[in-house]
């Protein structure tokens, strides 16, 4: 083997080594899967992958919930309440609160979901996206959000609305939203409300 071929061989071996170390150092294995509820300050700085449903969608972050725990994911991506999000990135914790900072936008994947029409939420699962027709009983305004009480044929349900609404008591509306647990009780996080009739 002469000079040029030796040079090629050396370059090939260098490429093989560089490639192997790139594959190894990026460590696809370094990324660990963690359930939303397990994210704590112990994971500060670690790269994780998790999933949850959009609980609140703001301009620069999505707040995810798995029904009982919440996590803010900083992203520009747009989603609607109840959509399923699979996100990975670095955990940042500050004063016992943790956030997820994706390293690239591609690390946030949003799966759009359509609500299922139901008549009540008693036997429904947490995380389900439901659509129901109900009468508005009361609306309590908390400034940036409001809490509604609605009544279907079957039960009375608490609804959390991330936005302030101006609805008329006694009227029937169709509410779509995500079932979550708040202080041990199931409630709906409102995605959309429409007046019927």
């Amino acid at each position, binding site marked *: 083997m002469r000079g040029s071929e030796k*040079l090629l*061989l050396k370059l090939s071996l260098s490429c093989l080594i560089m*490639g192997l170390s790139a594959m190894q150092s990026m460590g696809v294995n370094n990324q660990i899967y963690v359930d939303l509820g397990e994210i704590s300050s112990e994971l500060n700085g670690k790269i994780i992958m998790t999933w949850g449903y959009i609980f609140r969608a703001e301009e620069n972050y999505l707040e995810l919930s798995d029904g009982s725990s919440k996590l803010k994911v900083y992203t520009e991506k747009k989603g609607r309440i109840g959509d399923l999000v699979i996100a990975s990135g670095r955990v940042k914790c500050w004063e016992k609160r943790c956030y997820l900072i994706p390293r690239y936008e591609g690390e946030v994947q949003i799966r759009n979901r359509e609500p299922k029409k139901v008549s009540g939420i008693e036997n429904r699962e947490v995380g389900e996206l439901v659509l129901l027709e109900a009468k508005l009983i009361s609306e309590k305004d908390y400034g940036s959000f409001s809490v509604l009480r609605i009544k279907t044929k079957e039960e009375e349900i608490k609804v959390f609305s991330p936005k302030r609404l101006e609805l008329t008591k006694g009227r029937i509306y169709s509410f779509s939203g995500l079932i979550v647990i708040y202080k041990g009780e199931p409630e709906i996080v409102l995605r959309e409300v429409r007046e019927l009739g």
Partner: protein
Amino acid sequence: MADNFLLFLLAISGAILASITGTIPGMHVNNLISILIPLFPILSRELGIEGLAVLIVSMAVAHTFVNTIPSTYLGAPDPSTGSILPAHRLLLMGRGHMAVVLTLAGSILSLILSLMILPMFMLVLPILSQIIEKNTSIVLSGILLFLIASERSYYRRIYAMFIVLLSGILGIYVLDLGFLDQDTALFPSFVGLFTAPTIIHSVLTSGKVPRQIIRVRTRRKELMRGSLAGTVAGIISGVIPGVSPSIAAGLIRKSRNEREYLVTIGGINTAEAMYAMVMLYLLGATRSGPAAALKSIFRDFSGDLFVVLIGTALVSGGLATILAMFLSRKFSSFVEKINYRLVAISVLFGLSSAIFLISGVRGILVEITALGIGILPIYFGCRRGSCMGFLLVPIAMRSLGLNELILPVFN
């Protein structure tokens, strides 16, 4: 994600597999991917989608290294590369192995150079791509004019214009008026425009292949100049839609000699394959068959995966170089014993049969028409990149909004 060791094994397997398929004359990486597509559901279940992505990238990169072997020894180029006549000329001088080594050097140096340029490129790409997107018609018309104007004499410029026009009309019929199914339209067209004319020309003009000398003479300057030119041309080809490696080769300055030209050609293919992947990661744009295949399996492309795929490209390129050198030595040892004309005609027959199976009689008609156009640059002595009017004219027309005016005339 799949285990790192499994990914590494898949990168190696992809390179070995492509080293086998890459020696099949006229086999383009897109054909290879289209054969694999029906197996994607099974492969992604068994290997994981990251594993499948590693396999695709590894095969795509290794293919750009190994396809120099049929180009050189059988005179059947990869359809997108266009001219391999210098490699074939070296074969007839008993220097086939040297031609392969030069092309491989171009490929591997370009692989390293394109990675070195990558960080800077990532900064400018978003702006660059916006400019190109807004001015596609101007960019493509400019490229067409440059291809014609850069011919060496007045007569050749007129011939080149004529070839651009003819191939453009063929492109309008095949791509815009739907003469062939869009998924399979490129194969018969490119075989007719590039592969078949080269095979026919080499059958008609070549004498007996002499005993091959396994000795390689290169100058480092030639390697550096050629690979740099190849990298730049490959990036242009990977970034601008419709610009194939052969057009990009025509855009860069003329190589000083055949050896440097071969280094450049090797570099273009590899840099184009790399930057098609970069375009997919940064902008979600598909500029090659493998990139389209990756996009079909990933909704989003994460940074981790991108680095793993870059690592895969390095592993695959490194291994493919060693395998291609080994295969080239083997080919060199028996190429003078085989009946070259018989092999070349068999290759042409095999490709035409594949076209008939994929696209039927219409595919053969397109191949023959394209062959009539593709043979012209060889006899007029102008650049074969002029045949890329086939792609450039329809795309430029579309971006100029002339389709509604011109298509009814052809219809």
